[in-house]
């Protein structure tokens, strides 16, 4: 466990006044506050450090203890004995801006803080009822998993929750499970659980919303003369008639053969198939002759 220089954290020197500490804290908090930096783990960490520094330096008792024993925190107990002998001393009023609830409770403080001050910080609105902390979890699924609605059991903070994952859920989509977050503070309601889906595409199909895109290789003769081919759809195979004189890069739409539309049971997007024409290789003499004949009929093959 390392010593934390709280003055350095708040970019102050150790002669800073209460007003300077408050100003520095607010300035840095406005920069790193998680409400202003959503999904930024670095900002959250930095904010916790700022919060902890403020918790100590804005409280005259804690600051005194820190100034005296901070670098030698192992001797903090001696300080506590001294404190007890001063028991008549009036408790100073706090002006700390530590959260009453929300995302940042005492448990976010460092081990260093815990050793010196016993963990929990005080709260400005400590008697205020606050909703519990919202939990965020990421659930990784494959694209084929989300083609059908299914149930899955998750373990969040030691509790098992069985959730239904609707078909067609998007990569990055967040669903809220009300009341499954942290417990409320001072009798406030529980927070919510937010699950972000991370969907890994394990297929040859590209997905945009409920539409799917795929590439199908076509031999030269079928492209030129037309014919039926069998292609893969997401959940099976279908016979697809290819028109004569199909060009390379041409697209066809297979209506309703795409991905399920989220929360619209029985509705599907479309599948867009792009043809990629393969010209023959390793031609026999006979084939070469015939192609030459063809080229005489039509200059440049166009």
């Amino acid at each position, binding site marked *: 466990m390392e010593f934390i220089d709280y003055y350095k954290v708040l970019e102050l020197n150790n002669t800073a006044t209460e007003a300077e500490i408050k100003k520095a804290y607010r300035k840095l908090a406005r920069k790193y506050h998680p409400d*202003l930096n959503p999904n930024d783990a670095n900002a959250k960490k930095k904010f916790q450090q700022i919060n902890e520094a403020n918790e100590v330096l804005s409280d005259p008792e804690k600051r005194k203890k820190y100034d005296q024993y901070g670098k030698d925190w192992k001797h903090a107990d001696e300080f506590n004995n001294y404190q007890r002998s001063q028991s008549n001393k009036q408790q100073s009023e706090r002006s700390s801006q530590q959260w009453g609830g929300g995302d940042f409770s005492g448990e976010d403080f460092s081990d260093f803080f815990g050793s010196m001050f016993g963990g929990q910080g005080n709260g400005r*609105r400590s008697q205020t009822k606050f909703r519990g902390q919202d939990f965020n979890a990421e659930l990784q699924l494959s694209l084929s998993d989300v083609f059908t609605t299914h149930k899955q059991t998750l373990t969040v903070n030691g509790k098992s929750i069985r959730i239904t994952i609707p078909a067609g859920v*998007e990569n990055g989509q967040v669903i809220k499970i009300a009341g499954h977050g942290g417990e409320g503070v001072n009798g406030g309601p529980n927070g919510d659980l937010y699950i972000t889906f991370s969907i890994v595409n394990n297929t040859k199909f590209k997905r945009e919303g409920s539409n799917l895109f795929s590439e199908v290789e076509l031999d030269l003769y079928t492209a030129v003369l037309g014919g039926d081919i069998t292609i893969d759809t997401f959940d099976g195979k279908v016979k697809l008639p290819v028109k004569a004189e199909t060009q390379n890069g041409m697209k066809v739409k297979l209506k309703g053969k795409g991905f399920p539309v989220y929360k619209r049971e029985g509705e599907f997007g479309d599948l867009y198939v792009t043809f990629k024409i393969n010209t023959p290789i390793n031609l026999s003499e006979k084939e070469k002759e015939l192609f030459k004949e063809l080229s005489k009929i039509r200059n440049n093959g166009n």
Partner: protein
Amino acid sequence: MEIENFIPAKYFCEVYKVDASFVDSLKEYGLITIVVYEEIEYIEKEKLNELEKMIRLHYDLNINMEGIEAVSHLLNKIDTLQQEINALKSRL
């Protein structure tokens, strides 16, 4: 109106220990919607998260109403951009 989805604005102020004028200002700036039912003002429970955020911005970070308005606007913009990034990533 399904009453269980709303909490009286007055009760909200008591529980969160905020002045009624704070809620009034949020309403004036269009940052929250107040529903009036049988002459009582209500706040949507769904919006509690947002409101708590605004309380923190105002009381803990000393950000005034104009600031909260600007921050809310920018956070919504970040959210939209994040969704676009996610959509683009899934297309790659």
